[in-house]
């Protein structure tokens, strides 16, 4: 049982400060807005800060600049049409969001996904995780001044884009997961290309590490900056690498295995101190583990060649194309599913371990073709909430390292 602690955090206003403002040594407090267009806020986050010299007295994150009403749109779009919208939540890992949503639909409908589809999904989830961590590494590094590393990580990320392009036809916003499986089977050429890339990837991680882990500037700007204790993390509801960096071994892939993760061999990295440096190390190690899982998934895909990749269930899955043109019944199914796919009455919550933490979809259905309510438990929003906790009392220049290491994408925070 996790220990609990009362939530004692209150943002310190200027009045709470115990210094004499008439003392010429201290001077006035400065109110500063960082964002929403600041390049280091990773999107459109706005931070309202009160600064005492270079020290942050209080910090208020203001979110909502990228609010597009995704949850509300789901209510009018219907079950199927919401898929492309999930891509645009956390847009650095579109397929992982697709899978999280598809899993919620499947648990609501009570259907099981075929084995091969599970394996393809695991492969895509781990590729997405690597892609998202590469973005984290590149953007945080460029924010802290390591420009070369940004280009190196983005070169690698570009290669993953090309792999996804070869499989899905798009580089971003793939929308290739369907309820009951994946839209198309992973073909052999693409699988081979993915294997080649994944096998070469650990050497690239070594290269990144050689540039950062022992770099005096990176070390100095990350070590003991933004320390989150384990209790802090639990208070704030943090999950994912941020929680693991603080020493809690909590990974949904291990604690509540889904898509057959219990049968894969991988380790969960955890940190000891909970500072930005630990979170960086955890993510680096996670990329290595993800590459390991990718290879295992590829091995299994080789064995399960020719297996089902999409459920045969005419209530939820479109019939094969050839039969639509020849069979009246299948044509009716096609019309029924596209225009009016109904899910049983009830609520379902389903979550996956995304690169930022626990990504969950809560769906409520009244038995019609549209959700009554669709809620996205976005880990990014909780990560943003942790900013004031770690930033207050620190220097302004630490802010950039903190924002980078907490790792959020505003598309998901604001939804």
């Amino acid at each position, binding site marked *: 049982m996790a220990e609990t602690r009362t939530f004692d955090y209150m943002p310190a206003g200027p009045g709470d400060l115990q210094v004499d403002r008439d003392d010429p040594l201290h001077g006035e407090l400065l109110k500063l807005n960082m964002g929403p267009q600041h390049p280091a806020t990773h999107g459109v986050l706005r931070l309202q800060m009160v600064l005492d010299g270079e020290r942050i007295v209080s910090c208020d994150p203001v979110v909502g600049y990228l609010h597009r009403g995704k949850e509300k749109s789901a209510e009018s779009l219907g079950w199927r049409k*919401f898929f492309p919208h999930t891509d645009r939540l956390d847009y650095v890992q579109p397929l992982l969001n697709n899978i999280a949503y598809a899993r919620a639909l499947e648990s609501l409908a009570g259907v099981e996904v075929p084995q091969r589809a599970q394996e393809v999904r695991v492969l895509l989830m781990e590729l997405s995780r690597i892609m998202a961590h590469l973005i984290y590494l590149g953007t945080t590094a460029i924010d802290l001044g390591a420009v070369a590393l940004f280009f190196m990580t983005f070169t690698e990320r570009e290669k993953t884009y090309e792999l996804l392009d070869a499989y899905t*036809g798009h580089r971003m916003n793939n929308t290739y997961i369907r309820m009951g499986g994946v839209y198309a089977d992973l073909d052999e050429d693409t699988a081979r290309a993915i294997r080649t890339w994944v096998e070469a990837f650990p050497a690239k991680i070594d290269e990144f590490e050689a540039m950062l882990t022992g770099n005096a500037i990176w070390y100095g700007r990350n070590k003991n900056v933004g320390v989150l204790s384990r209790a802090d993390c639990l208070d704030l509801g943090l999950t994912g690498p941020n929680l693991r960096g603080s020493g809690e071994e909590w990974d949904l892939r291990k604690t509540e295995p889904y898509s057959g993760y219990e049968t894969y061999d991988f380790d969960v*990295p955890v940190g000891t101190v909970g500072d930005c440096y630990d979170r960086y190390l955890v993510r680096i190690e996670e990329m290595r583990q993800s590459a390991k899982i990718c290879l295992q998934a590829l091995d299994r895909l080789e064995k399960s060649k020719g297996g089902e990749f999409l459920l045969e269930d005419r209530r939820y899955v479109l019939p094969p194309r050839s039969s639509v043109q020849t069979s009246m019944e299948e044509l009716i199914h096609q019309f029924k599913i596209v225009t009016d796919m109904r899910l049983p009455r009830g609520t379902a919550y389903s979550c996956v371990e995304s690169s930022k933490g626990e990504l969950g979809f809560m769906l409520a259905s009244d038995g019609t073709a549209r959700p009554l309510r669709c809620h996205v438990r976005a880990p990014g929003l909780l990560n943003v909430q942790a900013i004031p906790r770690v930033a207050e009392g620190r220097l302004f220049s630490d802010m950039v390292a903190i924002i980078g290491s907490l790792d959020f994408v505003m598309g998901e925070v604001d939804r």
Partner: protein
Amino acid sequence: MVIVKRKTLTLAERLYLPEILRGLSITFRKMFQPKVTRQYPEEPLPTNEVTRGQPRLRELTEGHLACVSCGLCEAACPAYAITIDGQETDRFIEREPERFEIDMLRCILCGFCEEACPKEAIFMSTELELAGFTRESFKYGIDKLKRSTEELAPRMEYIKRINERW
């Protein structure tokens, strides 16, 4: 569970000067490696039948579309980009669209229309570039969407193949 190893800086790393030299050596090595930058638009991305570009309508016979204006793609479109008005025709397919408009500014290239179409009438082409001066010019009508069957044949075959399920 693995506990990540925190590093303590060695003397050389703390002195920083050797590190600068090491960094420079990486830079020089990179100079002799193959370039990864692609000179877009002079060097466009390769496209093939997997590429999901803008949706296009297939011509069944010279001047006539395969579309029967059933409206399924309109219903499947998550971006509400498609507008169809149907009409009767003397051809054997009996119905055809009078107006078929796709608002390319709305279209997110998701491919749901292609997936939904029961008549193999709409396909994702390899055309990706989009530019214009007015918003109106992005509302593509039948004249701009029409493509011959030969042009869309690779994609048609590909879609047939990936849908070939046991």
